[in-house]
């Protein structure tokens, strides 16, 4: 082949070396896994979601294994936006692309976290995690109500000039409608999906396994749901999409790109193999070369639909 493969993609104004990121909450603040993976090998990483103040999270048990998946109820545990800027960012080597994730319980607080991240040199973009219970709506997630989601995107969009990704909750009837809300309010891109709400029970104690009762289901089990939602969202909007959910191999990642994602995030799979994101990046490149692509970006949306009927 003449030209080398171009692996770069543009995720709503965030220039990525390749389309593989690690997902929020699954790669810490970026330096925990330095022994296993050089983050400069992948497109970038999304840091653990940040709140205005440091938060302690839920009591244990916080995790439970399920068939091909896991439930988590970590809740808001994080060091807070200020400690992130002060302590965590400087610990990262130059050349690592960092996306800061933000979640809060009120829209104003979301906006305030975004403001604090403005002008921080190492932050390439912000991901707004809309899967957080909205206190004022009695615990319903921000991302479950179109009007609340619209207000959240509007407020955070105003609060920062950085590329703004909105991470959607999968616990909705119509993901395409939610994607359109984000596009309408000026989001630079959409990340999906966050964990699916689930429950696991211990029949011997007759209690939920998690201290919190409900938790978020992640891992390979949810991949078909995530892929469907990415495909639906990609058909509904023009802003780029970052596909998330159960990705554990390059083949999984390629499926999301074919369904219309510009980039992907690897979550739960990091726990099993902390170097997996690098292997996925290499595997996507190998796939693209094997199939005669010059640019990995061209994989986006290359799914051929059945002629008989559209899915």
């Amino acid at each position, binding site marked *: 082949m003449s030209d080398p493969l171009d692996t770069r993609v543009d995720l709503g104004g965030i220039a990525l070396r390749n389309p593989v990121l690690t997902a929020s*909450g*699954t*790669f*810490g603040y970026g*330096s*925990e*896994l330095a*022994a*296993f993976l050089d983050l400069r090998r992948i497109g970038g990483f999304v840091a*653990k979601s940040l709140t205005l103040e440091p938060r*302690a*999270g*839920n*009591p*244990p*048990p*916080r*995790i*439970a*294994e*399920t*068939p*091909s*998946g*896991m439930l*988590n109820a*970590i809740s808001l*545990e994080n060091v807070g936006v200020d400690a992130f800027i002060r302590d965590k960012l400087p*610990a990262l080597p130059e050349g690592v692309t960092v996306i800061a994730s933000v979640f809060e319980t009120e829209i104003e607080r979301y906006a305030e976290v975004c403001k604090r991240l403005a002008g921080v040199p190492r932050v390439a973009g912000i991901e707004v995690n809309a899967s957080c219970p909205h206190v004022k709506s009695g615990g319903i997630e921000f991302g479950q109500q179109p009007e609340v989601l619209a207000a959240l995107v509007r407020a955070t969009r105003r609060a920062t000039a950085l590329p703004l990704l909105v991470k959607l909750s999968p616990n909705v009837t119509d993901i395409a409608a939610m994607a359109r809300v984000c596009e309408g309010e000026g989001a630079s891109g959409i990340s999906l999906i966050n964990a699916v709400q689930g429950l696991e029970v211990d029949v011997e104690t007759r209690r939920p396994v998690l*201290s919190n009762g409900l938790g978020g289901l992640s*891992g*390979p*089990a949810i991949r078909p749901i995530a892929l469907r939602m990415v495909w639906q969202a990609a058909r509904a909007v023009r802003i780029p999409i970052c596909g998330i959910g159960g990705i*554990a*191999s390059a083949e999984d990642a390629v499926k999301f790109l074919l369904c219309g994602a510009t980039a992907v995030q690897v979550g*739960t799979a*990091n*726990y*099993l*193999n*902390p*170097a997996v994101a690098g292997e996925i990046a290499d595997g996507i490149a190998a796939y693209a070369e094997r199939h005669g692509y010059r640019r990995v970006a061209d994989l986006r949306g290359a799914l051929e639909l059945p002629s008989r009927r559209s899915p």
Partner: protein
Amino acid sequence: MAEVGKAPKAPRSEPQASGVHPGGLPKPIRVDAEVIENRPEGGANLRLRLRVRGWPGFRPGQFVMLSPGARTSVERSDPLLPRPMAVFRERPHPDGAEVEILYKRVGRGTRLLAETLPGQALRMVGPLGRAFPAPAAGERALLVAGGTGIASVYQLAAGIPGRERVEVLLGARTGADLMGEADFAALGVALRVATEDGSRGERGLVTALLEGSLAGPGVARVYTCGPKPMMERVAQLAAAAGCACVVSLENHMACGFGVCLGCAAPLSAGGYALVCRDGPAFDASAIAWGALP
């Protein structure tokens, strides 16, 4: 074998858990380890010997994450998560090191581990966590362990200079359930055993043995690992005797290296420590026992 107090190989930047000596820790690896032997040892216990290329050594108290069952050419996602297992012992091996694990068959993951055959491979990430703090000069070391917790304290007993001063109290439901007794006996430590049914050693709980030992001369430092009620009782007894107590916790884990926040242990000072990153050994007084599952 790892020595307590050895020079740091790869200093870590994480905050230090109160009272626990961080020491220098070997840089963890991710590797497919080959099963050399996986032998039933009575009861539901098994002894697993693994050949590990590039093994960096370990410190007493550290653990590894092992895939739940043999790896195949196909990645199987059920069961999904790796299982934490203390490193029982290491030996030199022409090709890397031999790492030994003592484990009990309790659930899906350990049952699949128990069906793993020599020649098959397990994915291993480790060593992880911090080392047990060494006893201070002149302190007696009193190790109290039960159930699978026995595996976690063996290397501590082996590594303390002057083993004759080390006292080890092991507990189990029955003699068949008791792990590693012969290994401890071979160390030359002062060893006492209690089983609930009296089928081995004294009849009763290991904590009853502890009461006698705490009454002995000089200052003791107590180390404990095992079922939560046992550890909690050990901590109470040690506190009542004015002795420092180090507990090694067995929280459920998804990653083992500090990123999932799944292994949180509630602290008496409020907030949480991560068992995989800040532990598994903690000052017993730092733990909010009531909120621990």
